[in-house]
């Protein structure tokens, strides 16, 4: 069987990183506040979280960057931090990275309490990949990484640089000046830089911002390989498909934290479960067909021949609906569970915020 180049590349990256076998999809544990579902810890002790944030706020004068934010991130978890521009995502990352002092609240980063005195110790255990790669364009890729290896006081600098560049598939460009690289390649160098110190927590701030689809796909593959390796990743993004694909859990921030949970949990929390039915023509009396079916709580006609059914349990309702439609002599064109994307969740929350501000 022929494998797609993406699959082959992904396997190559995972092999180069020495990644363990990816868990079966159904058994992949999700970390976070729920310690029962947390995966085995990879960078810290079992009873700790990689990040614990409690009522953290930051104000710049009168302007509130973020307010009363609380969440936990487990070791080995990929945690998505979503929000519109200006929601406070980057400021949250900078605060947890000790670049910005919080106005109130507390946090523990990689097991170390967040404080100005602990800044160097925290920064030694984490990495932040800012939105802009911030590379020295006249220096080569290797020289850029050598500088940062020195700043982290790392040993085996040559070996670490080689492993980091291999991980991002850039070993053959090691001697090129960074100014000669495309934006996507510079982003990869920045990711290699962030991997140099084997961080306990890796913060990725909008890692695919401004990248074309191919470069975006490459960065996604790298994040997937890091996830498989068990690296704790805090990913800020406003690309919802990116969060849905890469993250175990997501948080939605719009100055205040609106929701935290697995994408499917958030969908369930915000939207009623529903079935979408399409039949040829229209039902003569849909009330009779859908009225007393088990698991069906209500219905409405969405278009000619189209019906949306509110259900409590799609597994019970769908077969009953199919049988009822056949009994009624309807020609079924489609019968499917209504799927809400993370984007629907996001837009719903942001719309609520906009409405609240109007009021």
């Amino acid at each position, binding site marked *: 069987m022929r494998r797609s180049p993406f699959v082959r590349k992904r396997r190559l990256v995972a092999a180069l990183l020495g990644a363990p076998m990816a868990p079966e999809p159904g058994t992949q544990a999700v970390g976070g506040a729920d310690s029962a579902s947390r995966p085995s810890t990879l960078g810290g002790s079992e009873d700790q979280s990689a990040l614990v944030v409690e009522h953290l706020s930051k104000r710049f004068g009168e302007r509130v960057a973020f307010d009363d934010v609380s969440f936990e991130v487990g070791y080995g978890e990929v945690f998505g931090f979503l929000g519109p521009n200006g929601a406070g995502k980057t400021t949250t990352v*900078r605060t947890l*990275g000790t*670049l*910005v002092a919080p106005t109130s609240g507390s946090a523990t980063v990689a097991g170390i309490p967040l404080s100005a005195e602990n800044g160097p110790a925290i*920064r030694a255990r984490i990495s932040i990949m800012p939105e802009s790669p*911030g590379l020295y364009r*006249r*220096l080569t890729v290797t020289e850029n990484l050598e500088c940062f290896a020195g700043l982290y006081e790392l040993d085996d600098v040559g070996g670490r640089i080689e492993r980091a560049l291999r991980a991002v598939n850039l070993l053959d460009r090691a001697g090129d000046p960074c100014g000669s690289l495309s934006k996507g390649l510079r982003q990869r160098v920045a990711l290699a*830089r962030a991997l140099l110190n084997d961080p306990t927590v890796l913060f990725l701030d909008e890692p695919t911002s401004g990248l074309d689809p191919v470069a975006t796909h490459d960065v996604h593959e790298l994040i997937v390989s890091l996830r498989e390796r068990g690296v704790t990743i805090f990913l800020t993004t406003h690309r919802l498909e990116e969060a849905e694909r890469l993250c175990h859990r997501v948080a939605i921030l719009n100055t205040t934290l609106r929701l935290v949970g697995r994408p499917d949990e958030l969908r369930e929390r915000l939207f009623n479960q529903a079935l979408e039915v399409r039949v040829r023509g229209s039902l003569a009396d849909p009330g009779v067909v859908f009225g007393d079916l088990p698991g069906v709580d209500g219905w409405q006609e969405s278009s000619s021949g189209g019906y949306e059914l509110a259900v409590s349990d799609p597994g019970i309702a769908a077969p009953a609906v199919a049988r009822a439609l056949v009994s009624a002599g309807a020609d079924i064109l489609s019968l499917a569970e209504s799927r809400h994307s993370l984007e629907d969740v996001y837009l719903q929350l942001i719309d609520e915020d906009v409405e609240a501000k109007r009021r």
Partner: protein
Amino acid sequence: MRFSWTRVRAILVKELRDYRRNRFVIGTMAFLPVIFIAAPIVQLLTVSASAASSKLDARVGISLLYLLLIPAFLPSTLSAYSVVGEREQGTLEPILITPIRREEFLVGKALAVAAPTLTIAYAIFGIFLAAAALFAHPGIASAVFAGSHILVQLVFTPLLAGWSIWVGIAISARSTDIRVAQQLSVLASLPPLGIVALMQFKVITPSTGLALGLAAVLLAVDVLGWRAVAAMFDRERLVTGART
């Protein structure tokens, strides 16, 4: 965490590599010293050996003052670029995300400016002395090599450079625009040069004691300047641009 010379070295090496590949920096570093060596040598070679002692001293003083312009002016543009330049090219935040302390960052930056400045300043001074010894009238040459002149040059070169570097970095750490930082930095490098000028022109009678006294004052100002710049270096303001 202790002060780390490994991190200072990382900044220093990175800066020197960056200078080496920057034609503007190389050009500035090469061009200014050429001017500053040409003018004093012309001064020296055009003065008559029979000139009055006071005129001779004044000429030698002016010649040596030109040489002190090198450590005063050469570092000002580089040091003014050091922080605001990193910020404008987006490289400051990745640096500040590492465990580096502000003192380590500042010392690395200062050494990176000081190393080429002192190398060039002393090399130019050496060329000047060689030219005086080889081509100037023996009377004029002996005036150049006399007394406190050489000591003033040797001692004040690093002290003036230190002043210019710390003032430049301080301006750079608080500035939001490279051009403004560089202009202010050049202006701020002038005051100590005025004092040295008074000594060279013998408005203040030069003596070893006076030279050492002024050197001690400049040294103290340099050390305090370093402390002051470290206190002014505000990570949060530099990263976010917000006033804190």
